[in-house]
Each structure stands twice: as C-alpha cells, then as structure tokens.
C-alpha cells in the first residue's frame, strides 16, 4: 500500500467561494466528518438537490476505486490518487476525482471531472458551456466527438455513393470480364439495334457447351476458365468484324451474324465451330474435352420479330440439338415449339 502523498499546506491562498466555483465548478469542500461545507455549481446541478450543505458526501456518491470507502479518514487516505466514483443520481456513469487534505485537519477538498463517459454525463445532467471552466477540455472533447461523427458520416456517404456507382458501372458494363466477349446486355442492345431496321438480314446462333460441367467438376474451376477463354478465342476467329459474340451465361454463348441469313453458310460455320471446340486442349498437363450444341434462327423466318422471340427460338433450336444427342446444329422450325 502506498502512503498518503504529502502536500505541503503552505503558503496558503485565500480563494473566495465564487472564485472556487469558476475555477472548479465540480468541487466539494468537506468538513472533518465528511459533511459538505460548500460545493461547486456543476456538482450541485449533478446531485439534483438544492440543499446539500451539512449533508454527508457519502449519501451523494460512491467511491468505486481504488476501493469503497464510507468515512472521511478513509477517503483522506487516498489523497492525491486518481479516484473513480459515481453519483447516486446516475450510478451508471463513472466520474474521476481527486481529494486533498485541508490544513490543520479542517477537512478535505474534492475535485471531480467527467472522465471518459463525458458525453453521456453531459446528456444525463443537461450540462452547458457555463458548467465547465474554460480550462476544462471536456468541451473540446465534445466538439471533437461531434465533428468526427460528422466527418465519418460524410465519409460513409461517400463510400455508399461510390459503391452505388460501382454497381451501376458493373450493370452498364458491356463486356464479360472473364472472356472479354460481349455480355448479355451488349447482345440485347446489338439485337435491338439490328431489329430497328426491318430490312436487316441476320442469323442468330445460341451455343451451349457440352461436358463443360464435367471439366469444371473434375479438373477444377481454373481449367473451366481456361476452356472458356479458349472457346472465346475460337468463336472470335470464326466470325467477321461486325458480328457479335456474347457470353450470356456460365457456358452459353450467343452469336449474331449481321447481313447473313444464308442457312448453308451458317450451318458450315456451326459445324466448323463444333469441330474445332471438340479438339482437346491441355491445361496444366491435363486434357480438357468438350463439345458444343448449337441452335440457329434466321431473320427470313419472321416479319416483325422481337428480341425475346429471336432468343427464345434460337434457344429452342439449341435444345433440339441437345435432345438429339449433343454436338449438333439445328435450325429453328415452328414444330420445335415446347410441348
């Protein structure tokens, strides 16, 4: 145990009560018996009692650290140490304090500050600027707390706006990031633009990879990605400039052939695509084998088609290819309609 700190009582300064109130609005002057001789205005506000003079300090507060005490001599023994205490009006808020002995055993002087729960304390007791000495930085802490809440709010808003912008940018993106091909949005836009010309001639191919899932499952996603990149390369090399190749799903592709609705030519292209995609590729020493099923629809089948109708018809033709044993190419005909 540490011995009480010796604070020399001389030379004495005579301070008026009013001066004490301004300097230390949270002070309490105690008699040798622990009765309140006078108290600062903020302390009086916080204990919420008009008439506290003559009452015991231990009826108004509890000392928590360094230890619980209930008599003045025990409190005096803690002279000069940091005290943690609570007022009975708000026992959930811990305050900070320090006590010193007054000369000639005439009592003690206790000064208090709000400690780390200053913001809650200010709210609890409705404290104002006038309740603090200008030397007390509690007000600056409150200011800082409010200012940093504001700036972090602004930062959070910025982050949210950036996130929203990122999502929009992603939605507006026209490229499939893995293969560099167009994405579904780009294909929809290109198709809509093509359809806006009633004289446009075109072929629309829907292709789905066969056995791709098996590559993914047995050789891993990296091998799957390798296959997709390879497919993209093959597709790009088989179309002309101006045609559009899009990856519209995991292993689904749509090809738009502009100014071409020749079934013989498109069938040759489809067969060549299947043939080339069936050639095995090697990824990290492992052989990847896939094939492809294709369905095609042509502008000459329609008078005034919609994008959805074209995609749906190409899709039906594709499923006809799948159903008849995969690795095939089928043109759409009305009797393919789902039943």
């Amino acid at each position: 145990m540490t011995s009480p700190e010796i604070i020399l009582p001389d030379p004495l300064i005579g301070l008026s009560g009013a001066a004490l109130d301004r300097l230390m609005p949270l002070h309490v002057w105690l008699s040798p018996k622990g009765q309140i001789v006078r108290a600062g205005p903020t302390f009086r506000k916080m204990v919420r009692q008009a008439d506290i003079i003559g009452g015991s300090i231990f009826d108004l507060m509890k000392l928590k650290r360094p230890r619980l005490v209930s008599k003045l001599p025990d409190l005096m023994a803690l002279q000069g140490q940091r005290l943690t205490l609570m007022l009975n009006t708000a026992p959930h808020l811990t305050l900070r304090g320090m006590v010193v002995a007054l000369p000639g055993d005439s009592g003690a002087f206790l000064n208090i500050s709000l400690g780390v729960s200053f913001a809650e304390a200010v709210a609890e007791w409705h404290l104002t600027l006038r309740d603090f000495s200008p030397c007390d930085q509690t007000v600056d802490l409150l200011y800082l707390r409010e200012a940093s809440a504001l700036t972090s709010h602004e930062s959070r808003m910025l982050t949210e706006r950036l996130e929203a912008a990122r999502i929009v940018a992603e939605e507006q993106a026209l490229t499939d990031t893995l293969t560099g091909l167009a994405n579904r949005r780009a294909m929809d836009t290109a198709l809509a633009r093509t359809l806006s010309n009633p004289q446009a001639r075109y072929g629309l191919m829907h292709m789905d990879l066969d056995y791709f899932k098996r590559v993914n499952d047995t050789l891993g996603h990296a091998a799957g990605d390798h296959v997709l990149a390879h497919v993209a390369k093959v597709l790009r090399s088989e179309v002309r400039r101006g045609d559009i190749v899009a990856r519209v799903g995991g292993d689904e592709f749509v090809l738009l052939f502009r100014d071409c609705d020749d079934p013989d030519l498109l069938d040759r292209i489809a067969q060549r695509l299947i043939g080339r995609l069936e050639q095995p590729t090697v990824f990290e020493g492992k052989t990847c084998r896939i094939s492809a099923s294709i369905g095609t629809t042509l502008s000459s089948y329609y008078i005034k088609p919609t994008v959805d109708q074209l995609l749906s018809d190409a899709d039906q033709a594709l499923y006809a290819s799948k159903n008849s044993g995969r690795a095939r190419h089928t043109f759409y005909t009305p009797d393919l309609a789902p039943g």
Partner: protein
Amino acid sequence: MHGLVNRALQEFVKDTYGADIWGEVRDQAALPFDEFESMLHYDIRLTRLTIDAASAVLHKDAASLLEDVGSWLVSNPAQESIRRLLRFGGTTFLDFLQSLEELPGRARMALPDLDMPEIVLQTDTPGRFRLEIRWVLDGMGSVLLGALRGMADDYGALVVLEAEHGREGAEIVVIDLLDAQFAAGRTFELDAQMR
C-alpha cells in the same frame, strides 16, 4: 481545395436557387462531374471557376455571393451541425469572437487535411474588432462576414460588420459589437441529442 469547401458552395446554390441553376453553374464552369464530393480534394482552379460561374449565372458579384454562402452556412437548418460546432467557441458572442483565431485549429482537429484560412483577431477598442483573413482563395473575408452576421443573430448580439481591404492581399472584417445581449438568441445544448 477540400471538397467540403466546394460542396458548401454547391449546396448553397442548390438549396437557395434549385438544382437546375446548379446545373447551369456546373455547365458554365465546365466541371467534369455532376457534383463535388465533400471528402475528396479538387484543384483550386475548379473552385475559382465555380465561384465565377455562380457569380455570372446569378448576376451577383463574388463578394455578395460569398457573403450569402457564409450566412447560409450558419443559419440554414440543414447545416445545423456547422452552427453547433461554431457555438462550441463560447458562451457569448464576445467569447465566440475571441475563439475565431482557434477556428483553423478546431477545424483541423476534425479534418487534418482541411484547407483553412489564417485568421488574426485584433481588438481596436473594447467594442471594436478587426478580423484579418489570409487565404489562397479570394473572398474568405466575405464568407466570414456572412457567417459572423448569422452567428451574431444566433447569439442575440447586435453588431455592425464591414469589409475592408488589408495589406498584402489580406481581407479585413471590422466588427462593432454594439450590444452582446440585444436579443435572446438561440439556445445551444452541449448534448447534440437535446436538439
């Protein structure tokens, strides 16, 4: 220039004159974006262009425009937070005046990268003060003049404010404090929740 400064200008135009007018200002200043972000930094040229454009679109000289920005900053309900932060400066308008030199330091407590002017307060006579302002951006004297007018109302003080040109590009605001407690003023609770 810190985004907060630019954004204050932008929000003032939007709030006072509408989003369409802001659109005109933005187009005239040829800003390469829709809105300033408060937490980013911008080339000071953009700030100057925006002030010039707002001044042209609103047919107001820059000093009057910036004075309005200052008043708006401290009196518009949506900016209550700024009024509050300023009220931490003191219990009375006089205390508040004396705290103005601390303003840049206070601002940097919250935002270390915030650009702030250099502010010096001189007391000519007990009721007369001269605020000397130096900054990279012209017109901060006008902003402060507008803000001081708003804060005097807030404290209920009666003041006469006048702008002057100082030496070496300094802007001066002369403050005559006629009555510190002329009116009741608005209350200020330390606890933000009490609003």
